[in-house]
């Protein structure tokens, strides 16, 4: 599988009169891992949904040089909530869903599902229903369901946000491995600076909304697997924390939430 390039050219998104995101320009290389960071409510999910093709946009979004006009098989989406798994299908049937839609014969479907279930460590849970799985297992099932379609781009919206710290760490390492094996391009929304430092090639920090845009882009030129205790990592962490901190303050001020001591 080969990752695709993504190009955002003067992208703006609005809901009715409210301009949520405006003038975003970003070139993402094939196979790159991009993390989107920013204060809550600035428009990270909105931007991701736009790349997924769920929302109309101003400006241009192109994936592998062809404009995005709607959802497509070339872009897989991993949602924050594992509710998007179909509760009436077993984990295996959920994972096979995309293949079934395309009419892949049962045997080939089964073989491929086995491979991807193994990749996310869910072979033993294949015949269970989503409700019988833990939160972390459900998220892995969701990832397998997306990867089996072999998308060029995987869009992930805080996929590990609802998990406990230990599970999250395990899945971060797994995702890093899967990404390197598959070669796909990943755009990953997170609140967690450490998570971004662990995974990303570049970290994109967004400004506080409304009319959110890109504040800074940090290139994380460190070898994988990354050591969060290294001095480069710590320096990057501080820089990102200060960048985001300023925007969060700005966002809170707009929401009337910060009470400066008088």
């Amino acid at each position, binding site marked *: 599988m080969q990752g695709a390039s993504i190009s955002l050219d003067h992208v703006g998104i609005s809901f009715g009169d409210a301009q949520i995101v405006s003038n975003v320009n970003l070139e993402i290389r094939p196979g790159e891992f991009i993390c989107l960071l920013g204060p809550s409510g600035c428009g990270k999910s909105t931007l991701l949904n736009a790349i*997924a*093709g*769920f929302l109309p946009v101003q400006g241009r979004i192109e994936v592998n040089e062809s404009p995005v006009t*709607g*959802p*497509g*098989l070339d*872009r*897989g*989406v991993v*949602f924050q*909530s594992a*509710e*998007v798994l*179909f509760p*009436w*299908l077993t984990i295996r049937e959920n994972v096979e*869903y*995309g293949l079934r*839609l*395309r009419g892949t014969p049962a045997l080939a479907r089964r073989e491929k599902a086995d491979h991807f279930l193994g990749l996310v460590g869910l072979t033993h849970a294949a015949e269970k*229903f989503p409700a019988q799985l833990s939160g972390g297992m459900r998220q892995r099932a969701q990832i397998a*369901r*997306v990867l089996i*379609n072999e998308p060029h781009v995987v869009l992930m919206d805080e996929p590990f946000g609802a998990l406990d710290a230990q599970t999250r760490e395990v899945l971060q390492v797994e995702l890093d491995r899967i990404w390197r094996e598959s070669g796909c391009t990943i755009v990953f929304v997170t609140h967690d600076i450490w998570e971004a430092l662990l995974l990303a090639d570049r970290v994109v920090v967004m400004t506080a909304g409304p009319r959110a845009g890109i504040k800074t882009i940090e290139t994380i030129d460190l070898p994988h697997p990354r050591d969060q205790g290294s001095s480069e990592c710590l320096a990057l962490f501080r820089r990102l924390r200060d960048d985001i901190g300023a925007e969060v303050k700005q966002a809170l001020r707009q929401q009337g939430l910060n009470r400066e001591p008088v």
Partner: protein
Amino acid sequence: MSDTTQSPGVRLPLSTLRFKAMATKVSVGPLSVLAGLLLWHVASLYTSPLFLPSPLTVWRTALEMLADGSLLESVAASAWRIAAGWAAGVAVGVPLGVFMGRFPVIRLMVDPYIEFFRFIPPIAFVTLAVIWLGPGEITKIALIFYTTVFIVTLNTIAGVKAVNPLRLQAARSLGANAISEMTTVILPSTVPFMVTGARIAMGNSFLTVVSAEIVSAQTGLGAMIWTARNFARTDWVFVGIIALGILGYVFDRVLRLASNKLLNRYQ
């Protein structure tokens, strides 16, 4: 704390506790029925049989009516009308509900009618149905059909509207088109609503069938209950009422078992 008199430190072994819990579950229902029968019996001792026949009298009457075939005939007539009208109603109500839930324009068109008719019980249409469709079988079935379509359609619409939009987005980005989205996401999501609608409709079908049979039928449990009046046979009324209760229970049980078995994964 009435039947457990052990000191706080003593614990019953788990198996004993489980046995007690099960015994309670199994025995409370029948015991309560028995108590009810007893109360009925005692009450019947102090009233005339025309006012309240005793359980034993009703039992004997039921046996007689079973022996001469009249009870089974009435039950079969009512059961057939309910089954036919209800099944047709579900068969039409489900697709109608999906269609209306999916296309808001159609829903907007039909909405005023729904809002108007939802408070008019089907019983109100009995006379009209007889005038339009005659006194035959079709009248009763049509009324039950109407009852069922209404409820099943409304429930199905609610189900379609309750489909998680994120699941639709997920399906789309996994390669679903409008048709596969319908068959693989919307329909399965809506199944529990359809089943609920069908079950409620079954209950209402019993209401409808009795009133329709009272007004215009020679056969069926409703007719039987109504004829009893002419012969001052209160015991027939009781037999009819109890037969209705049992028939309803059986229908609901069968429906529940079937839907649990066939549609288990959608619940």
